C-alpha cells in the first residue's frame, strides 16, 4: 500500500462492539477536518476494521482548562496544547473486518464481531480501501457517486440491488428524482434488469427541468433504443415533444374488483360498497363496470339490489365512485389494444418501459393504473417463473417496478391488499422487485419497510420518518446522527442489502453534457456487446 496516501487520525482508546469505539485524535489531525459519515480504517493486531465516523467531540486533560482557558491568542501556546492538554475524540462505528489470512482475503470484508485492541492506529480510508469494500466500476458495478469528502468512486452492484426491493427516501427537493434516474441508468447500463417505471410527474422518460431551470435529459434520450415511453395523456406528451411508443387506453372490462379495493379511500367508498363490487362482478363477470353504468331503469336496479342483497345507499355510494372513474379520459368502454400485453412484450425484448401520466396526476388515476398493470404483469411473471422452475429453464429477466409516492400503495391500510405490498413481501421469488420513491417513509407499512433490501436516504428531518427508514438497522443511533446531518441537497446515506456497509455519499453529477457521456456506454462497448450476443446466438 502506498504509505504517502495514508492519513493517520489517532488511536483507539476505548469502546465496545455495541456502541462503537472512541478514538483519540492525534495533534496533527484537526478536529475540524473530521466529518460525520467519513470512512476510516483501524489497523488492529490481527485484522483490519472498516468503520464510519458517527460523532466528533472535544476533550480536555484537566477540567481547570475549561474554567480558566489558556491564552490561545498566542500561537505557541495554542499549538502546544492542541492534541495534548486539549484533544478531539472521534466516535467510530466499526462495520466490517478483514483478517490477514488468505481465506478471508478471498471472501472479502465480513461484518464485525469484535472490536480492535487498545491503541490500534486509525487512518482515514484510502481510495484503495473503498475499492476493497465497495468494488471497482466494472461490468456489474455502477458508479453512483463519491463518499462524502472523498474523490473515490463509490460503486454499487446492480445485480445485488435488483435482487431485493429498494427504496429512495428523502424530503422534497433533496435529489431523489435525480438519483433515481441514475439508478435506472445503472440498471440499464449494466443490463441487469428490465424496468417498468410509473412516472407520475413525467420526469424519467423525456427531459425535465432541474431546480436551476436547466433542461435535464432522461432515459429515452440517453438510451433511445432501449427505452419505450408509454403515455396515458397523448396530448401532454405531444406538447412536450416526447416521442411516445404507445398510448395506454384501459377498457372497462380490464378493471377488476381488486382494483376498486385500493381506490376505496380515494373514491370515498364505504366498506359495503367495496363488497358490492365483488357481488356485481360475480353477477356480470368481466363487463361488470359497463353493465353497472348502463343500469338506468329504477325497477331493474331495485330488482338487482334485492337479488344481490345490496342496500340502496351503498349502491348510491358505489355509483358516485364509479362515476369518478368513468370520467377518467383514458378509460374506454372497450380498449382497442391490450396495454398489459404490450408492456410485457416490450419488457420481454429487454426494452424498459416508462409510463407517463401527463395531466392525470390525480391519485385515483395513478393508483388505478399502476395497480392494474402491475397486478397483471406480476401474474405473468409468476406464471413464467414457476414454469421455468418446473422445466428447469432460464428464469425471466428480473423486473424492477419503480413507483413514486409509494405510501399511497404501501400504507398500512392497503399494503396487505395491493400488489405492491405482495411484491415487497414476497420479493425476489418471482424475479420482480420494487424501487419505491417516497418523501414520507413513515407512511409506509412497517412490514413492507422491513422487507426493503437497500435503502437510500436523503435528508429527512421528521423524527418518525428517520425512525422508519432506520428501523432494524444495527447502529441505528449512530446512523441517525449521520442522516440528520446530511446536506439538504445531493447527499445521501445508502445501506442495506446491496452495500457491505452503510456509507454517506454524494451522488455523481447529472445534467451536464459531460455527465451524459459517462452514462452512455461508448460505441466500442456496444459493439463488443453486440459481438458477444452474436456469438451467443450463433452457438446457442
Amino acid at each position, binding site marked *: 500500500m502506498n504509505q504517502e496516501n495514508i492519513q493517520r487520525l489517532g488511536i483507539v482508546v476505548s469502546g465496545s462492539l455495541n456502541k462503537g469505539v472512541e478514538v483519540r485524535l492525534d*495533534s496533527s489531525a484537526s478536529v475540524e477536518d473530521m466529518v460525520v459519515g467519513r470512512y476510516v480504517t483501524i489497523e488492529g493486531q490481527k485484522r483490519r476494521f472498516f468503520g464510519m465516523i458517527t460523532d466528533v467531540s472535544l476533550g480536555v*486533560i*484537566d477540567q*481547570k*482548562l475549561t474554567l*480558566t482557558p*489558556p491564552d490561545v491568542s*498566542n500561537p*505557541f*501556546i495554542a*499549538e*502546544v*496544547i492542541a*492534541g*495534548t*492538554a486539549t484533544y478531539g475524540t472521534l466516535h467510530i462505528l466499526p462495520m466490517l473486518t478483514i483478517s490477514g489470512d488468505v481465506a478471508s482475503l478471498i471472501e472479502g470484508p465480513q461484518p464485525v464481531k469484535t472490536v480492535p485492541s487498545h491503541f490500534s492506529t486509525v487512518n482515514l480510508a484510502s481510495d484503495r480501501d473503498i475499492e476493497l469494500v465497495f468494488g471497482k466500476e466494472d461490468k456489474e458495478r455502477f458508479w453512483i457517486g463519491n463518499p462524502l469528502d472523498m474523490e473515490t468512486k463509490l460503486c454499487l452492484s446492480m445485480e445485488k440491488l435488483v435482487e431485493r426491493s429498494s427504496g429512495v427516501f428523502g424530503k422534497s427537493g433533496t435529489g431523489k428524482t435525480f438519483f433515481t434516474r441514475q439508478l435506472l441508468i445503472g440498471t440499464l447500463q449494466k443490463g441487469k434488469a428490465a424496468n417498468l417505471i410509473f412516472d407520475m410527474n413525467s420526469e424519467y422518460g423525456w427531459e425535465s427541468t432541474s431546480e436551476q431551470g436547466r433542461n435535464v435529459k432522461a432515459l429515452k434520450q440517453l438510451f433511445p433504443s432501449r427505452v419505450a415511453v408509454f403515455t396515458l395523456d397523448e396530448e401532454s406528451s405531444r406538447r412536450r415533444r416526447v416521442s411516445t411508443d404507445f398510448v395506454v387506453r384501459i377498457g372497462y372490462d380490464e378493471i377488476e374488483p381488486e382494483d376498486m379495493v385500493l381506490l376505496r379511500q380515494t373514491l370515498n367508498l364505504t366498506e359495503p360498497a367495496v363488497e358490492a363490487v365483488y357481488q356485481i362482478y360475480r353477477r356480470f363477470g368481466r363487463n361488470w363496470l359497463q353493465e353497472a353504468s348502463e343500469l338506468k331503469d329504477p325497477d331493474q336496479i331495485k330488482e338487482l339490489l334485492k337479488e344481490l342483497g345490496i342496500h340502496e345507499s351503498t349502491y348510491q355510494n358505489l355509483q358516485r365512485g364509479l362515476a369518478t372513474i368513468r370520467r377518467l379520459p383514458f378509460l374506454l368502454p372497450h380498449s382497442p389494444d391490450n396495454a398489459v400485453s404490450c408492456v410485457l412484450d416490450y419488457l420481454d425484448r429487454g426494452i424498459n418501459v416508462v409510463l407517463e401520466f401527463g395531466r392525470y396526476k390525480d391519485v385515483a388515476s395513478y393508483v388505478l393504473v399502476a395497480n392494474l398493470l402491475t397486478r397483471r404483469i406480476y401474474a405473468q411473471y409468476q406464471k413464467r417463473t414457476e414454469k421455468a422452475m418446473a422445466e428447469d429453464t432460464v428464469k425471466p429477466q428480473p423486473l424492477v417496478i419503480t413507483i413514486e409516492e409509494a405510501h399511497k400503495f404501501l400504507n398500512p391500510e392497503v399494503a396487505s391488499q395491493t400488489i405492491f405490498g405482495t411484491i415487497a413481501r414476497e420479493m425476489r421469488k418471482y424475479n420482480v422487485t420494487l424501487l419505491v420513491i417516497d418523501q414520507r417513509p413513515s407512511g409506509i407499512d412497517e412490514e413492507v419497510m422491513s422487507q426493503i433490501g437497500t435503502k437510500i436516504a436523503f435528508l429527512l428531518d421528521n423524527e418518525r420518518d428517520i425512525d422508519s427508514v432506520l428501523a432494524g438497522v444495527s447502529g441505528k443511533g449512530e446512523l441517525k446522527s449521520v442522516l440528520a446531518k446530511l446536506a439538504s441537497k445531493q447527499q445521501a446515506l445508502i445501506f442495506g442489502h446491496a452495500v457491505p456497509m452503510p456509507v454517506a455519499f454524494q451522488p455523481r453529477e447529472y445534467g451536464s453534457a459531460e455527465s451524459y457521456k459517462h452514462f452512455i456506454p461508448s460505441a466500442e462497448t456496444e459493439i463488443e456487446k453486440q459481438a458477444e450476443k452474436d456469438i451467443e446466438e450463433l452457438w446457442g
Partner: protein
Amino acid sequence: MSTDEVQRVGEVVEASTTDFVAQCYELYQTPPLGSLVKTMDLTVELYGIVYNATTTSIEPGRRPIARGRDEASDDEIYRSNPQLLKLLRSEFSALVVGHRQGDILYRYLPPKPARIHSFVYLCSTEEVKEFSQSFDFLNMLINTHLPVSTDELVAACLRKMSQAYEDRHAFLVAAGKEQAILLGGEFNQLKSILGRIRQ
C-alpha cells in the same frame, strides 16, 4: 571528541548521585542557568543541567565586607583590592540527568556519582542536539525538589537548548507538548512554564 573543542568551565568539588557542585576557575564565570554540562568519571560521561550558581567567600565563616565607599565604580573596588579575586569563589550546581557509557546515551541516573576534581565542560551544540532528541530528562527536572523553582529551571533549560536548533519554534512546541502530557493535572504549572518559553 577532544576536550579542546568544548569549553572547560570548572572542576567538581562536591558530588552525589543526583547532582554535583563545581567550582569555576575564574570568579563569576559560571555557565548560564539551564545549560547542559558534562563531566567524566573514568569510562562514564555524566550529563548535568545547571540549576544553581553561587559566589561566596572561600572561608565559610568570613563574609565579605563593603569596600566601595571611596571608589567611583564597583570595578574600581576589584582593581584596588586584587586579593578579592582569590578570597571569593564562584560555584554552580548541576542536576545529573543522564550519562553516556560507550557510545550509548542514557537519559537516566548513572551507576555512580561524579569524582571530585573531575573537569566540567559546557556541552557543544551537537551534544545539546543529541541529548535533546528525547525529552525524557524533563521528567527528572520536574520531579526533583530544588532550591530553584522547577518552572524557572525547565523554562531556562529549554530556552537554552532551543538555541542549538535552527527551528527553535518547532523544538519548543515539541517540548511544550511533552510537558503538557507530563503536567496533565497541573495546568497552572504548565501555563507558567509555557509563559516562560514562548517567544
